[in-house]
């Protein structure tokens, strides 16, 4: 598991450290570095595609042009670090280091190639797709029809479990159905619980598609070792956010949800006080992103000096965050 990511002159993260657990929820205002942190994770496997000018902090780029660095620190048993460095001229260079030699480096490199960051676009989710043998819910071109079809055929029990979870999350539907719009292609529909009407994917609401996509991510048979998720609460009714949390916990804590696979490290972002409320039992999972001037920093909610006293009041965690007491809210003009 990656224990922390350190940033130097990386966009708005001029000098910041993001502490990570099995599950981490970053909460903060627009432009406070949440998406930038996820972008760094996405870049770990394709850093060559990013030039200095694309990653440098605005001040660094304008003035002395110091190096930009992103450093990942793995915990036990790997005890590795990976530092990616961009000088103002030349290509980015990765440096691996280890306290225990390099027995885990190859494994960690392979895992880095499988890191995925999802920023779900409801416009692409309902599209019919050409069938492929690949059973992965792609972050780059997420195709619900293709993934669900492969899951149904290769992991029928898991597909049934996803159907059941769908019924809990969106009680008006009870089943995913498939169509073949043309040879070798698939599209999907949801069947209504009452009347068994087929609602084609293209006619489903954006929130419904996003909720189904979240379940697709959570029910992947072999999910990536690390998943980043931009605002998984987006488009979903506040009362259904508990099920969104459950889907994410399914990834991070598989034992607790009857799964026998390796845990997935999950980093999610949010701006929703309602979603934050769902994590009030586990404040150790929350990171506050705070922007001051041109610089953003991360701090663990647990490190807030008066957290216990603040939460003893009558307000929920989300309400307290919204007041600004905990930081991570927009600056006043």
């Amino acid at each position, binding site marked *: 598991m990656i224990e922390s990511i350190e940033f130097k002159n990386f966009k708005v993260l001029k000098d910041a450290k993001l502490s990570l657990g099995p599950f981490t929820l970053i909460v903060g205002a627009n432009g406070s570095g949440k998406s930038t942190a996820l972008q760094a994770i996405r870049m770990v496997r394709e850093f060559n595609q990013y030039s200095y000018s694309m990653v440098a902090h605005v001040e660094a780029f304008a003035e002395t042009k110091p190096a930009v660095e992103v450093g990942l620190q793995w915990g036990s048993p790997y005890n590795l670090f990976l530092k990616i460095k961009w000088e103002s001229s030349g290509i980015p260079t990765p440096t691996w280091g280890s306290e225990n030699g390099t027995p885990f480096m190859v494994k960690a490199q392979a895992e880095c190639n499988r890191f995925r960051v999802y920023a779900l676009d409801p416009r692409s989710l309902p599209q019919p797709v050409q069938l492929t043998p690949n059973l992965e819910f792609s972050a780059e071109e997420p195709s619900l029809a293709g993934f669900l079809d492969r899951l149904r055929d290769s992991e029928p029990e898991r597909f049934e479990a996803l159907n059941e979870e769908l019924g*809990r999350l969106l009680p008006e539907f009870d089943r995913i159905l498939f169509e073949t719009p043309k040879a070798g292609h698939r599209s999907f529909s949801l069947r209504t619980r009452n009347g068994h009407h087929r609602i084609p994917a293209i006619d489903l609401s954006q929130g419904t598609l996003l909720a189904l996509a979240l379940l697709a991510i959570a029910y992947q048979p072999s999910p990536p070792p690390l998943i980043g998720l931009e605002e998984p609460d987006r488009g979903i009714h506040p*009362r259904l956010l*508990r*099920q969104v949390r*459950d889907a994410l*916990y*399914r990834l991070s*804590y598989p034992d*607790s*949800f009857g799964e026998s696979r390796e845990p997935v490290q999950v980093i999610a972002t949010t701006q929703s006080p*309602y979603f934050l*409320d769902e994590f009030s*039992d*586990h404040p150790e999972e929350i990171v506050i992103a705070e922007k001051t001037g041109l610089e953003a920093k991360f701090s663990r909610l647990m490190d807030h000096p008066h957290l216990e006293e603040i939460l*003893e*009041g*009558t*307000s*929920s965690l*989300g*309400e307290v965050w919204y007041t600004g007491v905990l930081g991570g809210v927009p600056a006043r003009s």
Partner: protein
Amino acid sequence: MKLAVYSESSADEAAVRILVDGILGEKTEVVKLPNFETKRGFGSVLTNISAVLQELHYGFEADALAVILDSDRTPIHRKAHDEPGQADPKCRLCCLRETVKDIQGQLTPMPNRQPVKTAIGLAVPQIEAWLLCGKDRGVGEASWLVGSKSRKPPYTSGSLKKAVYGKERYSLAEETRCMVAEAERLVDRCLLDLEQHWFPDGFGAFAQDIRRWKEPPSA
């Protein structure tokens, strides 16, 4: 009797219904209204209880409303608070009772209809403590009170939940299943009197309110 429940989640609601039926000795009907959820702490209960009571009063749907609050770290309810003029403004149960009384006093009386009966319980520090009755003798209002006075609570929210659900993280479906099973255990094994023994004020006040529902309305 048609019963509405105002609770922290749909998992709580199912368990609270079983407890109410057990105390009442009869099966209540679920009212055809959206389930009310507090979710966001005691502040939101105080803000929203007016809307809930108005909906029930003018909607003619429910005969009674059960509300369960978590005390968290706030003062627990004491019998002395029930004496005239002795309500404790820091006690959530006292505070909500006063609010409900004020709101119901402002509602326009409806012909041929009694006001909605209410029962308010204060789970100390949360409903999972009630659900451990008969399983863990260390969980009760007395032990919580002693621990709180010395700033060393005997258990935490996390430890209570782990004791009930068996793990730290669980799905809503699992939570509902566990809560319902524990509430059924309390009723089926006739443990509600024991519950009142261990939680005399928070659960006791709730049970007393519910038993009063069967009393004939005062003239």
